């Protein structure tokens, strides 16, 4: 093989790669990734999916808090409005261990017994600009090692040890949020719909919001 033709082939290949990635880069420039707002008050495991249905079913007996072994269930005060006296979990303070006692003891249909892999409290989302291993090859992996559901919920990115990636199996228990040692708060629990939107095209949502106003 001649040196000249070798160089030509390399240039052609590089050019092809550059041009084929241009649309993606342009799309990212026009529609940047926007992280959803973190939920500081996430619903309990097994809660009715609709917040309104949950408030109609919950009688405010505080039984879920009384049986919670890690004492993670907090209650809305008057600042919750119509949600006052109903429970929530703040995963940054204390997270759910998915023990299921609250689902068993709840007298109403507000919390129903659910398999822990079908619980829907939200999903974790990682801000890759704030996560230590994602930024500069740091060594952490706390969120992956603490996850009670294993690699179907959160796992290392392929070939990149210590860089966590959230998978579809995440139920949003928030143990990764509690254990995360970074002060930059790279991991948070968001609503499941917001999580997928942020993954696939947050810019569209942002544009829709801009058009609305």
């Amino acid at each position, binding site marked *: 093989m001649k040196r000249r033709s070798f160089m030509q082939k390399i240039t052609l290949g590089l050019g092809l790669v550059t041009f084929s990635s241009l649309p993606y880069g342009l799309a990212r420039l026009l529609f940047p990734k926007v992280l959803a707002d973190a939920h500081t008050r996430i619903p309990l495991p097994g809660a009715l999916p609709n917040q*309104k249905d949950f408030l109609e*079913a919950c*009688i405010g*007996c505080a039984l879920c808090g*009384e049986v919670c072994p890690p*004492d993670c269930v*907090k209650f809305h005060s008057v600042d919750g409005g119509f949600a006052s006296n109903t429970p929530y979990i703040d995963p940054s303070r204390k997270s759910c261990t998915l023990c299921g006692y609250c689902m068993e*003891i709840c007298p109403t249909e507000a919390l129903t017994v659910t398999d822990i892999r079908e619980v829907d409290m939200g999903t974790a989302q990682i801000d890759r600009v704030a996560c230590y291993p994602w930024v500069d090859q740091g060594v952490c992996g706390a969120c992956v090692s603490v996850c009670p559901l294993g690699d179907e919920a959160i796992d290392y990115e392929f070939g990149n040890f210590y860089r966590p990636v959230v998978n579809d199996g995440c139920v949003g228990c928030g143990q990764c949020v509690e254990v995360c040692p970074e002060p930059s708060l790279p991991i948070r629990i968001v609503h499941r719909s917001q999580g997928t939107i942020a993954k696939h095209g947050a810019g569209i949502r942002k544009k829709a919001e801009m058009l609305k106003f």
Partner: protein
Amino acid sequence: MKKIVRHLNKVRWFVLTVIFSMLILLPFLHLYQSYEAAHAYDLLAPNEKLIYDSMEWLTKPFVKDPEVDLNELKGTTWSGTLFGLKLSDPLSVVGQIAAGKNIYWPFLLTALIPILLTVVFGRFYCGWICPATFIYELNDNLAAWIRKAGLPVSKHKLDKRIKYFVLAAGIVISAATGMIAFATMYPPAILGREIYYSIALTGFGTGMVFFLLTLFFDLMVTRRGFCRYVCPGGALYSLLGRFRLLRIKRDVTTCNDCAKCNVVCQFGLDPLRDNFSQECNNCTACIAVCPTDALSFTLNIKDVKFQGPGHLGHKYKKDAA
């Protein structure tokens, strides 16, 4: 028989004290369970260690694995678990049905035993179980001392039918807003929840302000005013116990018209003239105070009509005038 009935008031006070102290004890047991679940005794603060040690000493003879076994006994009178039996206040079921506009049968069944007991015993919950009654009766004794000191407090009388309007308004508000309005204005629910908040969580919430206001209302405006005139639970129990089976009856041949029963009745009823009505909560204070054992229980779905003055034939001052 009558000798035993006279001591029921003491039994009632014992039951009230046990239930109120359980409301205080259960949050401590919850704290003990959460410390136990954390497996970190050495990391506890001194006051937390004190809670852990005392609760361990209390429960050690009864439970093997406190983390699981203590879950048998949980909750408040609003809703709770008693050795696997889930019990709920009928008012919570009414509020939930009004708010959700659907009937969740497992929840309705938890209120079945209280409803059946109410149909037989009337407003027994108000006198024998309600943790707020424990405070309200002590508060009423305080009002009696203030009255004795010369201040004319809590002497007004209102219309007893107000509480039925409160019950109806609560149902309408629950249906309109989708939240259970009774949970925020029903003293036993507030008290059970706030005691739990204050011990196991951050502290008293705003429900306690409401409860203190009702205490002040009772102390200054009317005697046991909230229970008699406002409480939606009392209204519901009065309606359920309208034709209750167990009633108090005056024996006219032994009654000597001393009117002690009328004075001691905190609900302002008129046992002296056989006027118990659906408001009577079977607290048995009048039975305990009667000097001639004229009052006793009977099985009847209706009160007897006024039987006239007692065996001494004294006329009441009002009738003579």
